[in-house]
């Protein structure tokens, strides 16, 4: 237990910071309350550094995933903290920022928002390091529960409430599905431990033994499939994607940017952990570097194809930039699932054949690029006739942005062209490993679907880019102006720099480390028989 806590320092730091933020947020003076956001950012930086230096290699099939995941979440988290500046209570805060009104501690929000922000990131970090089903479930819920509240308070409008309620109910449905899956997984293997040192029973080693012998237990397999489908909610993959556009549109742009990355990252960590436990064994254990066990492989494959196709097809017809980005975020989940299907390849596979590394690098790139796009949206507001400000949302709000606000405009152009995957920007270098790894695992049809989907995506990304770059600003369009939170523009700029520079700066080395895969040794047959372990194994694991 103690050594487990030793690996959790980053999470402990974030958790403590969240508690401190809550207390600080009760202060009656505005200046002290405003410290919440810088505190959260500082905590994230510290947690990121601590994660980099203290996270030991785990004993699972993906030993470096915790290190990669925690550092990634902390790194992107810092940018998200910048992006979320001024949320919640945007109008009140911006009125204060403009000097239109004084500060009233009763009317102002307390620091729940920032505390929940940190809790959610803690959850995502815990997901990356999970080695037990219960832990994984709690971590996933810790990621999600704060986001419901973040959506609800993100703007003062009713549609945020509506979005939060929708998000909550569907989230609860998703949680129910994967919890049921976890239960069946426990029933099929007799333990909640996902990974354990060699020789001890764990889900991974028992499933490996089953795969080597009679094949994976039907109960366990059902559990795996249901868990995957439940987690599809977190990554907004197709059967569970319906909430995405409504929730993104209902939430403020900044919170939508948060939703597009943090739950998705947590979801992909979970999927990779579950897939690692199932093992990329292929049809037989002899098949080195093979695919996920059937029918899981087939299901992930179908979900991947559906997710990218549906996401892209529906994004094409949107006129709201936020909805468009929401559908595009669905499509990007589909791309990443291609890497999950491809699997990590044979032992010591090069970066080009390692689908897990490709997913991780894509997650990083996607986080950076998507953040840029949402930061631009969050930095603009549209003045209504009655004088109240609303966030820019319609594609036409972005007309001529490069001419009127060059920094924001070019950030948007770089982000969407990056998301499009056009070389030489970051998106291309993220998509290339997906191509190579999928071809390495002989999924050529999937690669073609991925390619065609990129082409469909080009249509709507081009629309966004050309509205900003090519259209002339409407002369009467003085109703769109910058929001008074320079931190958001800074977040956008940081991501624009990342889109250009990360392509040249080989972070893929890091992703390669993060995606390192080692086979799980099958548990000896006698121990692997599920009924024998149900009674004895389960309490011991707890």
């Amino acid at each position: 237990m103690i050594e487990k806590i030793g690996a959790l320092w980053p999470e402990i730091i974030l958790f403590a910071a969240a508690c401190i933020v809550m207390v600080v947020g009760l202060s009656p003076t505005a200046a002290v309350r405003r410290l919440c956001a810088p505190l959260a950012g500082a905590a994230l930086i510290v947690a990121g550094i601590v994660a980099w230096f203290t996270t030991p290699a785990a004993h699972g099939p993906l030993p470096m995933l915790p290190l990669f995941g925690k550092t990634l979440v902390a790194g992107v988290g810092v940018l998200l903290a910048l992006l979320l500046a001024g949320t919640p209570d945007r109008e009140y805060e911006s009125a204060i920022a403009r000097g239109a009104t004084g500060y009233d501690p009763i009317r102002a929000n307390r620091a729940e928002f920032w505390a929940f922000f940190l809790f959610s990131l803690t959850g995502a970090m815990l997901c990356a390091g999970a080695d037990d089903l219960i832990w994984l479930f709690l971590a996933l819920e810790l990621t999600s529960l704060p986001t419901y509240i973040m959506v609800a308070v993100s703007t003062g409008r009713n549609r945020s409430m509506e979005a939060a309620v929708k998000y909550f109910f569907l989230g609860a449905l998703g949680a129910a599905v994967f919890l049921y899956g976890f239960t069946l997984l426990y029933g099929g293997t007799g333990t909640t431990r996902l990974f354990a040192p060699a020789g001890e029973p764990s889900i991974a080693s028992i499933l490996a033994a089953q795969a080597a012998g009679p094949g994976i237990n039907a109960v366990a397999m059902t559990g795996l499939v249901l868990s995957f489908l439940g987690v599809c909610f977190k990554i907004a993959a197709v059967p569970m994607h319906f909430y995405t556009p409504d929730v993104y549109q209902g939430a403020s742009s900044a919170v939508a940017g948060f939703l597009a990355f943090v739950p998705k990252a947590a979801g992909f960590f979970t999927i990779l952990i579950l897939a690692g436990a199932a093992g990329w064994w292929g049809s037989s254990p002899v098949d080195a570097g093979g695919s996920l066990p059937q029918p899981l492989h087939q299901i992930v494959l179908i979900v991947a194809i559906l997710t990218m196709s549906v996401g892209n097809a529906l994004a094409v017809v949107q006129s709201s930039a936020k909805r468009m980005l929401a559908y595009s975020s669905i499509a990007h989940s589909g791309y990443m699932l291609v890497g999950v299907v491809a699997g990590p390849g044979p032992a010591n596979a090069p970066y080009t054949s390692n689908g897990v590394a490709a997913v991780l690098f894509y997650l990083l790139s996607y986080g950076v690029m998507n953040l840029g796009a949402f930061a631009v949206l969050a930095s603009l507001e549209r003045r209504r006739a009655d004088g109240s400000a609303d966030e820019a949302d319609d594609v036409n709000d972005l007309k001529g942005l490069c001419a009127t606000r060059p920094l924001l405009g070019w950030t948007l152009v770089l982000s969407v062209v990056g998301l499009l995957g056009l070389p030489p920007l970051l998106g291309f270098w993220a998509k290339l490993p997906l191509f190579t790894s999928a071809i390495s695992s002989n999924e050529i049809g999937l690669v073609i679907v991925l390619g065609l989907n990129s082409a469909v995506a080009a249509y709507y990304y081009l629309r966004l880019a050309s509205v900003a770059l090519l259209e002339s600003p409407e002369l009467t369009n003085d109703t769109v102006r910058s929001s008074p939170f320079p931190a958001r523009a800074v977040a956008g700029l940081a991501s624009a720099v990342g889109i250009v520079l990360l392509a040249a700066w080989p972070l893929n080395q890091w992703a390669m480390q993060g995606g390192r895969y080692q086979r799980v040794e099958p548990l000896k047959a006698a121990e692997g028989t599920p009924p024998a372990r149900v009674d004895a194994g389960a309490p011991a694991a707890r």
Partner: protein
Amino acid sequence: MLLALILIPLLTAAVVPLAPKRSVGQVALLGTLVALALAAYLTLGRDWSGPDAGRDLAVSAPWMPELGLVFKLGTDGLSMSLVALTALLGPICVACSFTAVTQRVRTYYGWLLVLQAAMTGVFLARDMILFYVFFEFTLVPMFVLISLYGSTNRKAAAVKFFLYTFTGSVIALAGIVYAAWFNANRVDAADPVAKALVAASPDLVLGRWTFDLASLQAAASRFMSAETQWWVFLALLCGFAVKVPLVPVHTWLPLAHTEAPTAGSVVLAGVLLKLGTYGLLKIAIGLCPAGAMAWAPTIGLLCLLGIVGAGLICWVQTDVKKLVAYSSVAHLGFCVLGLFAFNDAGVQGSVLYMINHGLSTGALFLCIGMIYERYHTRSMREIGGLAARMPIWATFMVFFTMASVGLPGLNGFVSEFLCLLGAFQAGDVWRSHPLTVGGTGGNLGPYVAAIAGTGMIIAAMYLLYMLGHVVFGPLREPHHDEHHSASGGAHDAEPRLPADLTAREIGVLAPLAVLCLVLGVYPKPLMRMVDPGVKEVIAAVEGARTQRPATRPVAEGDAGAAPALATQEAAR
């Protein structure tokens, strides 16, 4: 040196936004002229006819080792001739836009220069991914040029152009990646054939992840089975055929050409289309010669459809620019037909065609652009008999039209004749027949050449028809008085152009005219220059023809996976 060819336009593009508005054009012109001088020095200053000419110019630097990428530039006579064409059209495109583009000039010249850099990069890249990066990146500047500076329907044209080419090339990327995967996992470096290859040229990387062009070509052409080559070639064809364009996927071209600004059309016709033929020639055929042979009859058929079909479409056009645009489809049909003859005459003619088409069609677009600047129309119904009004312009127009028709003595004839000759010889009829000499065997043959030959007649029909309407006959000018031209709004600031060409415009057209004449009378130096590249292509195809790529070595490591894969491949 080679890097400088890419960097000079790129750096000029970086400087252009900082220049004062009046001198933006001059700065851009200066940059392109420097690039042209360098390209001319490289092209004319050395003997390109040896097999290793230009090897000393190669640049190679590590880039992304995890992905097996190397930043590798190289050249040979073939690539260099196309680079020279690109560099030549650079200053011409800049100079022809001085009066045509008056708004957002910085953006315009900036993107034009970026486009030049990207196109040069395509011809110089010797790493597949680097090639792909440049190839794709040409889309962005062209997209901006069309959608900002084009005519009425420009947005639709730009989007259609982007989507067509992007879709095709993404599939080509899958083909490239497959070839790289094949080299890494299905080629054993310890195999005697592989060892012999590496011994012959030590730069080759076999049996490891790489995107090096020469290595992948060596690996794929030697070890890949004919069926697999067929598929990989198909993938690459998807990318390159759109760019050429071959018939079923040509529909973006007339729209893009017609809507693009003059310089955009010149670049499109002059160089961008050549990226497709160059890709087929340098990448696709070298990578999968067996696949290319298998595809040759189909591609020949598509070329015929293009030559005859697009020619007939040209005949019914009333928009002069659209007519020339469709004529590109027909012309490129000849070019690809010659290429897939796989013999000396055909491939040689095809390469010459790339250059010549760039010169003559580029010049035709310039001429039409000059008319458009004066009359703001391109419709044959509204203009006619302009020889009376603009004798100098009419001289150039007739000259370039004749070059395009293929009048002996001008450049178009040489390449068209060689392409047809190549296609004619490339039939198995000739190989077996004792009375014939010069037959090379292949998948085309006399019938194909005969049908393509009618294309020459059709070309003469529609081009002369256009000349008769626009240049000769009774003078017809659109009714435009001061009021009308002022109503354009944007045209207010435009300097009034004299009736006939200005010295600048003559300066833009004259070099092209001289080159058309020189290459028509004495194409020998150019033929010598591209010869090694041509020989390389023919050798690759001959190699595939004579030797069966039967041995498919299997790496020791994945003994388990390989049989399963082999059976899958066989099943295909």
